[in-house]
């Protein structure tokens, strides 16, 4: 039998990528295309859904063309930027406005207003997440309120809503001509409109946000055939869809309760599998859907998102000009043996998990004339390590699960100083997989699992191989535990500084 391959589409914030993976989970081909970022007003971030659809079609066709025999590609999986919101006309297939991107903060006032309502507690109770502008429901509401005639047209059933995977699946399966209108449960869980236990749209939440049910996609498992893509140069079953961070959890083979991954990019995203039990959070992590295999119960996860990780290194490069490339931060940091008493809290636009303090602002604490740019570089890297500890502690308090090891991916994992610091700060081994493309690999795994390329999640687990491991050193771990209150104090000061 010819080897079988799976196509993954990773629809991200800056680009759309199409990748092909073999049965060993190895990437064999990739094509990528960036799309425009629109910033029409301060705090507003938009994408053109038509451009993203064109890029998806183009990169997917190209990567299939790169294969010696495209017939060996047997399924398509999608991973997407989460919470980005699209509304379009079901007859013409044209969006009524550009997509509101997850970084867009225009719903802040709306969310403040909604959160002040006496029945606002319903949102956290049903959806599992505290009401915040971070999620897609308030963005959908904003479109209905501000795009001319959108609400009346939506109520007449003329408009459809979706996050990026919904938009792409609808277009891939025919668009106005019989397109399938579905979302996967992980993306649906990020709307604030879904009952996180039953995984259905919740009528009370729809009433709270004033959203017409007619425009919502059908909620489906993450792993299972969703439709047939007819819009590519070859018909393929669309057999998996996941939000990008959940896809990374899946690609990192975190299938057992307690297993966790952290993606270190511009920000950092830590997800820990909590199994079939939904954990009620009190310590600042979020309960979210991890994934669902067709015919099986939903698996949940705890999530801790940190807004600024690699972005702080970029600031050192572009804002201060202390380094000429991101990787050089390690060289600069290694010119000194410790942080010299210096701490950097990168609360550029507030702090997310586990603090959730939008008013916090960044600070550099502990400056003396002894501190050099080397100490500053070290403090910059340590900030990412300390923030990982903040999130892991919050999750441990919420779930009671211990963390056997932290699986990492993303650009910052080539930084050995940082990875060793994370291992020491958590007193937990940190491991990096052989395939760094965990988001697209997760989408490929989901689709391949649904069509039988892999028999079960154990087969996927066997594909996971370590490419590096950082082991904590007991004395460093003890020293960092003793030092941790200094970091916590710096965080408190950053919150106090930004307070009105």
């Amino acid at each position, binding site marked *: 039998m010819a080897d079988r391959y799976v196509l993954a589409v990773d629809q991200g914030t800056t680009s759309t990528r199409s990748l092909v993976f073999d049965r060993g989970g190895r990437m064999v081909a990739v094509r990528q295309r960036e799309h425009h970022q629109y910033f029409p007003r301060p705090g507003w971030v938009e994408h053109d859904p038509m451009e993203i659809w064109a890029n998806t079609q183009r990169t997917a066709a190209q990567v299939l063309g790169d294969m010696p025999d495209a017939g060996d590609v047997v399924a398509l999986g999608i991973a997407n930027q989460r919470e980005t919101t699209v509304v379009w006309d079901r007859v013409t297939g044209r969006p009524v406005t550009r997509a509101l991107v997850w970084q867009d903060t225009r719903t802040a006032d709306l969310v403040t207003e909604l959160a002040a309502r006496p029945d606002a507690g319903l949102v956290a109770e049903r959806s599992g997440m505290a009401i915040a502008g971070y999620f897609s429901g308030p963005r959908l509401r904003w479109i209905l309120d501000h795009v001319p005639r959108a609400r009346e047209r939506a109520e007449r059933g003329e408009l459809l809503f979706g996050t990026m995977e919904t938009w792409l699946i609808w277009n891939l399966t025919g668009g106005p001509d019989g397109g399938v209108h579905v979302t996967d449960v992980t993306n649906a869980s990020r709307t604030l409109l879904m009952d996180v236990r039953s995984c259905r749209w919740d009528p009370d939440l729809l009433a709270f946000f004033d959203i017409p049910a007619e425009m919502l996609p059908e909620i489906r498992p993450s792993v299972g055939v969703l439709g047939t893509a007819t819009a590519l140069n070859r018909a393929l079953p669309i057999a998996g869809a996941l939000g990008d961070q959940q896809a990374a959890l899946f690609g990192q083979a975190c299938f057992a309760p307690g297993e966790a991954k952290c993606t270190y990019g511009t920000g950092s995203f830590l997800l820990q599998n909590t199994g079939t039990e939904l954990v009620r959070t009190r310590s600042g992590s979020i309960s979210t859907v991890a994934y669902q295999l067709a015919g099986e119960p939903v698996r949940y996860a705890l999530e801790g998102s940190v807004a600024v990780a690699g972005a702080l290194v970029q600031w050192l490069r572009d804002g201060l000009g202390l380094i000429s490339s991101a*990787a*050089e931060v390690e*060289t600069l940091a290694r010119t000194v043996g410790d942080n010299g008493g210096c701490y950097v809290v990168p609360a550029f636009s507030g702090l997310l998990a586990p603090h959730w303090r939008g008013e916090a602002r960044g600070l550099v604490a502990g400056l003396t004339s002894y501190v050099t740019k080397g100490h500053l570089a070290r403090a910059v890297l340590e900030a990412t390590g300390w923030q990982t500890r903040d999130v892991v502690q919050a999750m441990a308090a919420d779930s009671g699960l211990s963390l056997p090891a932290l699986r990492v991916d993303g650009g910052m994992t080539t930084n*050995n100083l940082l990875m060793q610091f994370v291992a020491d700060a958590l007193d937990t081994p940190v491991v990096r997989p*052989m*395939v760094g493309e965990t988001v697209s690999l997760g989408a490929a795994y989901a689709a391949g699992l649904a069509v039988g390329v892999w028999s079960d999640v154990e087969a996927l687990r066997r594909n996971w*191989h*370590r*490419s590096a491991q950082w082991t904590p050193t007991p004395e460093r771990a003890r020293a960092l535990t003793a030092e941790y209150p200094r970091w916590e104090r710096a965080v408190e000061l950053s919150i106090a500084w930004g307070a009105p």
Partner: protein
Amino acid sequence: MRWVTTRARDGLASGAVPGTVQSIERAAAILRVVAGSGGTLGVTDIAAAVGLAKTTAHSLLRTLLHVGFVAQDPATGRYALGTGLLRLGTPLDVNELRARSSNWADALASRSGQAVRLATLAGTEVVVVHHVFRPDDSAQVLEVGTALPARSTALGKVLLAYGATHPPELAEVRAHGWAAERGEQEPGVGAIAAPVRDAGGLVVAALGVSGALTSLFDARGVPRSLLLAMVVDAAHAVSRELGHGGG
């Protein structure tokens, strides 16, 4: 050693000094103009400033772009000094080298089933700057920062062969474009390594696989051809990543 320098010339004087290479003089003049302009000039202005035909200036600029001595703003088409020129005399940052090679090193380990190491030369020793575990999930320790003897390792042989002294006994390494290690460093363990070049063509690192002698070489000690091709290809890919061969 005595350094011979000549006075810098402002433009291109009409009568070139006998025995000098005209295109290098022209390129030097262009670089002076680009350096002085702060990235504000396009090809037409540069050609006018050095007194060359636009087509001549254009082909010189394309060559300078190719070796990384100038950079071009894709939006405006204007030229500035390139990072290749700014880095002259400064060795490539090893952490930058690791970041740029990471994807290719992972792919090499994944396909070859062997451990992968990338190393640079520090005096008579070889320092490991990147290490990817053998993908069998056995207990392994990260060797980044470890110093290895240059003469008995494949990585070291590559770096010495292409280094300043290039010893005659390593002429074969240069002829083949790769080096082998057959148990000299550790009994039963071998390695195959190939050179990694920067934008200017200088060998800045060696990339290689290491593992059991029997899995790397056949009974006559010849590297297994598929494996050797993977190593050489991966080293080329990292070189391209560093800008060698026009990126």
